[in-house]
């Protein structure tokens, strides 16, 4: 158990921490000149029978939850939430819990290696050679490209600084989750409507009525632990129990928790939101603003497949709410008109007057290190990179923290472009698809062995820099990518060396933190860097005690004229395909055996992919549970077993994203199907992929492949209604 620390104890502790840091400084290069800081007053390193707790930051997604990891005799035993951390307040999700299976994954890449592309036999090299190879790349900055993941931020900052200094193209970063959340679209819509690009903060906890357009905030959306906490707060309600209506074609886990599930047809979100806007405005103010004027409510309801009365009822609920909130989610924005949908929904919030009010929409606090919103790359930008790769202008591609071969829609042609790059360096910890197609793999430490920080951009109202420190010594001969780049820069010399004059990763991070030393209003105040650094590690980051949310202003948003329309789906299939990130596996959970064995919340399927299909549709197609079907779009096809579920529109089918790996270790390989193969390249106005606008065909294969489900199949009608 973590202990309560009083401030006085804490100050004593800081002294000890600083002293021990000083003592340990002289221990040679093998040990850091700074030491790890236990979360509570525990002896550092091993002490028989005693656990030592270290605070760090979760890297399973970019939300940046604070973790406290219980270690014992140098082994990480259990992940717990950091109860002071503003994002998760001591809680974790299933993926955070299973992060130990990253650290101790039996399929980790254990040492720097080179190999023939596509080959699975790696030949070991040493870190000096590795540094030399990276240094070569840095010597030709214009021909070197970096592709990074959404975490960790300190590496992105370092690479950004480096690229800027040496004149290389700025690094691109993205993740499958940012793709399925259409983050760029949300940021762009915020810029258009509120004048400031931002991953907005939706104050779910204080809202009494929340309408969510496909935002699966209880699963993976932006910061699921924080939003789940918000959901719980909303349900507990300060005055009354909050009410949630989920608009989406498939009843997701979030929709299951909603009070009402409005199963609208994919692509009609703009119509529905605009219609709601019109009805609410008419109820509240007597007339609709220009933005919503043009919409034909009856037609919108009809297009969405929703009874008009229901839509009107929803409008009434929204209009009568004290603290209404409307959230635009990924599935809604991943449409050809995604940006318009986002604009309408944000404007609807403006209409409801909740901007900057409890239960409303806020600008997220800026990171303590930057003032600007740093969005992930859009698919448009990724496509540009792919084009560049194809043109042969890039000689070296360095990939860290993402698995583009698997995560990007196959139709973008990343894999083919990769073949045109002479040198591909993967910094992956696992033999994922991209690492298999790289020339070199210089494995970074896994999250729990790493230093770093994460600039948390959503999920909390507090300004927050989440800190990471290794909770255990690196298990294998891996090396921090930051250190590799620092060493390579030194070898490359010139601008690179000048840009990164740091002894090591710690010095680089401390350099970034320098501005926070002595800052006011923080969770802790430290006068000098050693003290600050000790506390930063001890508490797993630095944050302000008070929220620093911004109030969006939508001065003219409602005055614009709008002709809402339905999205243009891609392909000529008869079914809308809804690809959603698996709530359990998300983008990178497939190699963790316990996540594989954790049942999906809605279907209870384990260890595989499935195609969700309405029983009515299944009957029409002559299909039943476990029948393998071939799902094909204009871009590719996959085979997957059918799972009949009444909670999906009959004209929609859904496949979770996360399985279908061809590499990535024994637990992930050759398991399930990757729906990325079905996605097209259609993008919306913000440059994000219209992943929810694909239509597919379904063919019977005649095969049967039983899905492993926690829920038994032997249900009898008589026993259906349990007591």
């Amino acid at each position, binding site marked *: *158990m973590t202990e309560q620390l009083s401030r006085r104890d804490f100050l004593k502790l800081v002294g000890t921490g600083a002293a021990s840091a000083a003592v340990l400084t002289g221990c040679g290069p093998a040990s850091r000149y700074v030491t790890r800081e236990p979360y509570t007053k525990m002896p550092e390193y091993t002490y028989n029978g005693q656990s030592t707790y270290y605070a760090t930051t979760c890297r399973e997604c970019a939300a940046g939850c604070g973790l406290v990891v219980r270690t014992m005799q140098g082994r990480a035993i259990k992940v717990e939430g950091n109860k002071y951390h503003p994002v998760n307040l001591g809680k974790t999700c299933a993926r955070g819990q299973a992060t130990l299976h990253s650290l101790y994954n039996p399929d980790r890449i254990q040492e720097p290696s080179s190999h023939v592309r596509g080959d699975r036999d790696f030949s070991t090299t040493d870190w000096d050679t590795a540094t030399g190879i990276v240094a070569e790349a840095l010597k030709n900055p214009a021909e070197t490209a970096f592709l990074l993941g959404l975490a960790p931020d300190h590496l992105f900052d370092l690479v950004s600084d480096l690229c800027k200094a040496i004149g290389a193209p700025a690094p691109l970063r993205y993740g499958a989750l940012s793709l399925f959340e259409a983050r760029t679209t949300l940021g762009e819509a915020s810029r258009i409507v509120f004048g400031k690009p931002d991953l907005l903060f939706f104050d779910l906890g204080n809202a009494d009525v929340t309408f969510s357009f496909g935002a699966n905030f209880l699963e993976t959306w932006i910061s699921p632990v924080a939003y789940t906490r918000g959901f719980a707060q909303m349900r507990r309600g300060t005055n009354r129990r909050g009410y949630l209506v989920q608009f989406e074609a498939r009843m997701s886990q979030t929709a299951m928790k909603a009070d009402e599930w409005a199963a609208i047809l994919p692509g009609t979100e703009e119509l529905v939101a605009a219609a709601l806007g019109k009805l609410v405005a008419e109820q509240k103010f007597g007339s609709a603003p220009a933005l919503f004027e043009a919409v034909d409510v009856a037609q919108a309801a009809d297009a969405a497949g929703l009874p008009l009365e229901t839509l009107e009822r929803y409008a009434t609920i929204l209009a009568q709410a004290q603290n209404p909130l409307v959230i635009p989610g990924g599935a809604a924005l991943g449409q050809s008109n995604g940006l318009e949908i986002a604009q309408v929904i944000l404007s609807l919030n403006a209409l409801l007057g909740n901007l900057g009010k409890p239960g409303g929409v806020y600008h997220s606090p800026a990171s303590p290190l930057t003032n600007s919103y740093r969005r992930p790359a859009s698919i448009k930008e990724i496509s540009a990179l792919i084009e560049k790769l194809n043109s042969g202008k890039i000689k070296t591609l360095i990939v860290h923290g993402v698995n583009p071969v698997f995560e990007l829609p196959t139709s973008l042609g990343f894999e083919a472009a990769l073949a045109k790059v002479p040198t591909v360096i993967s910094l992956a910890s696992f033999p994922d698809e991209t690492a298999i197609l790289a020339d070199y793999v210089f494995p970074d430490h896994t999250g729990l062995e790493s230093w770093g920080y994460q600039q948390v951009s959503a999920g909390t109202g507090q300004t927050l820099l989440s800190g990471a420190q290794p909770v255990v010594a690196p298990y294998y001969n891996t090396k921090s990518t930051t250190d590799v780049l620092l060493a390579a820069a030194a070898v490359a010399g010139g601008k690179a060396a000048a840009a990164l004059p740091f002894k090591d990763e710690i010095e680089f991070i401390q350099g970034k933190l320098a501005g926070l030393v002595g800052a006011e209003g923080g969770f802790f105040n430290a006068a000098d860097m050693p003290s600050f650094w000790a506390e930063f590690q001890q508490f797993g980051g630095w944050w302000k005690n008070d929220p620093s949310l911004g109030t969006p202003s939508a001065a003219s948003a409602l005055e614009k004229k709008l002709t809402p329309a339905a999205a243009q789906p891609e392909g000529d299939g008869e079914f809308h395909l809804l690809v959603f990130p698996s709530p359990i596996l998300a983008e990178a959970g497939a190699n963790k055996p316990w996540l594989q064995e954790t049942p999906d919340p809605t279907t209870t399927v384990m260890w595989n992919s499935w195609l969700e299909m309405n029983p009515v549709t299944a009957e029409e197609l002559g299909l039943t549970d476990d029948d393998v079907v071939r799902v094909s779009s204009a871009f590719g096809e996959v085979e997957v077993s059918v799972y009949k579920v009444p909670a999906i529109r009959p004209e929609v089918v859904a496949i979770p994203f996360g399985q279908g790996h061809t590499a990535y270790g024994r637990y992930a390989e050759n398991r399930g199907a990757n729906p990325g193969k079905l996605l097209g390249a259609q993008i919306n106005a913000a440059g994000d992929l219209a992943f929810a606008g694909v239509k597919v065909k379904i063919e019977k294969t005649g095969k049967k492949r039983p899905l492993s489900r926690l829920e038994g199949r032997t249900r009898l009608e008589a026993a259906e209604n349990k007591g």
Partner: protein
Amino acid sequence: MAKHNIPEVKADLENTTGIWGMAIDQDLCTGCQACVAACAMENNIAFVGETDAGYGRSLHWLRIEHAFEGEFPEVQTSGFQPVLCQQCGNAPCEPVCPVFASVHSQAQDLNLQVYNRCVGTRYCANNCPYVARVFNMRDYDRPEPLSNQLNPDVTVRRRGIMEKCTFCIQRIHKVEDQAKSEGREVLDGEMQPACAQACPADAIIFGRLDDPESRVSKLAKTGRGSQLFEDLGTLPRVTYLKEEKDYGRLG
């Protein structure tokens, strides 16, 4: 004859509140499975692989049930219901074990499973109305270095052994020892089993039922509370707070 404090009459049990207990707010439970994963990580639960998992052999100590009801578009869900060992005060699994592997702890009023005593008759599991027990059908593989993660406070089970939720008794002991060494009572909220600790919605509340002021006692007494199959007389120590669907319930 040795001294013991085991009641002679079952009816005496009805008057006891139990010691440790749990309340699960189904209105808050989002079915996110964080508790399931946390439980597995804390308690060294083996994973069984796709085939066995699909055949009802997964070792989840905690499962989240739900069911869809009705046809589109009138689809309802039954709500997420985490089901774990209810730590019955009057547990049907206990008397049927021929070797006392399933016994009641008088100190914590919990239902214990003594792994190294278990010979694998599986009678306890058959007699558990909550289907909360799981059986190690095989020695499940935990390839190196995954075993580094094993919690030294929890026995690793081999094949042929029944296991189940323990309310994280290793944590209870730790907290009780800590309180005792400091000469105080255990504080409310000090003891958190792995599931409650992880639960992002804070839907699982754990604490002392014999303390009427504890959060769990108060929640268990709200009108929303009920226990699974109360009519069986098993005296479960887990209270479910039922899901509310009414708009505007006062808080």
